[in-house]
């Protein structure tokens, strides 16, 4: 019997879809539009997060070395720093290289050339593995003999971390807010489609159908609304994102946009899951409201 019951539910869901095409299409359209917004927001947030990570990874510790150090001392020191926990990479910049860089930066190389001696010193440029490692690593390097001064632009780093943290909190908040809004709008819309059919529910109850029997086609329909809506949203957002990637590759080569490969698949799965669950729950909850007959 169970089987035919489900068959009836499918048939009735399809029938009501046909009969209420107007409200059904409205519901699907609302689901897809609101999920599309959520999806776009989500990929923006993911990109902001990835940008924040990129920025954080650019933080460098600069350690100026005693000019008296010999090459072998420098090699030893370098090995020592590399072995610290949290150190990701180390680059040695000699005094000569430093002067070349400076000349480059000032834009008037010749002017510096008649300076007899090189006033600059050699340095290590050290990268930390994680933002949190920066301070302890800098601390550890300071205590080394042969290192004269350690600088990691603590102001700038602090500022940067505050910005990235704010960025993350902010985009997460917006994503959560938008997700809640989406859930709300979708379930509200489904509720309105059920509302338009409240009389039917009453009749079914009076004829002797159980609550579960009545609910079933509505839930199926809700799942259908959710799946179709989210499929449309997924297709559109993938298309838009692919377009954006192409645009960014041409116009914003210095931005590292998160590639589409795993992102869009995960996004599609998330949207489908969200759509189906919201559709089912939205319908089930709404029907319950009209079952008390």
């Amino acid at each position: 019997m169970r089987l035919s019951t489900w068959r009836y539910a499918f048939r009735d869901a399809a029938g009501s879809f046909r009969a209420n095409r107007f409200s059904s299409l409205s519901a699907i359209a609302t689901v897809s539009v609101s999920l599309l917004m959520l999806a776009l927001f989500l990929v923006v947030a993911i990109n902001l997060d990835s940008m924040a990570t990129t920025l954080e990874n650019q933080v460098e510790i600069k350690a100026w070395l005693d000019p008296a150090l010999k090459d072998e001392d420098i090699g030893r020191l370098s090995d020592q720093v590399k072995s610290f926990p949290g150190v990701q990479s180390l680059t040695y910049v000699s005094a000569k290289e430093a002067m070349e860089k400076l000349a480059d930066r000032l834009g008037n190389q010749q002017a510096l050339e008649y300076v007899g001696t090189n006033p600059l010193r050699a340095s290590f440029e050290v990268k930390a593995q994680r933002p949190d490692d920066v301070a302890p690593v800098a601390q550890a390097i300071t205590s080394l003999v042969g290192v004269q001064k350690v600088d990691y632009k603590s102001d700038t780093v602090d500022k940067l971390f505050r910005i990235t943290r704010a960025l993350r909190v902010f985009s997460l908040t917006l994503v959560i807010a938008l997700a809640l809004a989406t859930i709300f709008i979708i379930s509200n819309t489904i509720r309105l489609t059920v509302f338009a059919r409240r009389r039917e529910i009453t009749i079914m109850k009076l004829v002797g159908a159980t609550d579960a029997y009545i609910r079933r086609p509505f839930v199926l329909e809700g799942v259908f609304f959710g799946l179709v809506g989210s499929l449309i949203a997924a297709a559109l957002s993938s298309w838009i994102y692919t377009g954006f990637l192409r645009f960014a590759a041409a116009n914003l080569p210095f931005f590292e946009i998160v590639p589409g490969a795993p992102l869009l698949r995960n996004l599609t799965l998330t949207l489908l899951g969200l759509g189906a669950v919201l559709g089912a729950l939205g319908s089930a909850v709404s029907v319950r409201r009209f079952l008390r007959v």
Partner: protein
Amino acid sequence: MMIQFRGVSKIYPNHVAALRNVNIAVDKGEFVFIVGPSGAGKSTLVKCIYREELPTRGSIVVDGRDVTSLKPSAVPYLRRDVGVVYQDFKLLPNKTAYENVAFALECTEASQREIAKRVPAVLELVGMKDKVKALPIQLSGGEQQRIALARAIVNSPAVIVADEPTGNLDPDNSWAIIRILLELSRMGATVVVATHEKHIVNNLKQRVIAMDRGEVVRDEEKGAYGREA
């Protein structure tokens, strides 16, 4: 006793007293007319049988079930035992005539075979086999009423309740419907018919319960419609 009302009163939320201390007992297989002027409380009485309305006071027992204390999950099973022709038909607007009748069986988990056998038979019985594919809005008033009757009797309920089942039918069709209900009662169903059809009531000489302003004013075996009857 198939249907037993004991001291039943119904006061609607707007303080209209639709039933006042109604005591009725209807045996299995009995055929009862309920008559009375417009607003007398016939529909309210009938709605209490299948628990569309709960009485304000009193107890109702239908087919051994205490209707007033039934828990919600048991209500559908009561309603399957009571086939109802509603005064306003209450057909599902998105289902055809056939599907409306079949629905009453489907939701009781009847087998496919049984549905395919019974639905056409009962549609034939009420003279609607030509209109099986029509939606309710494509049917005339009397046709809708006959579909409503077909749905009420399709799963051979123990109790059949018909509220004004011939209000939209011509005399020939009305008689045909009443004859079907009589036949079903002879076969063991308990039939309660609320009606205004003086002619039919007076002709059949069945039990008549007359109501007025919420009270049972007369309850006679082999009764008549009343007054200038």
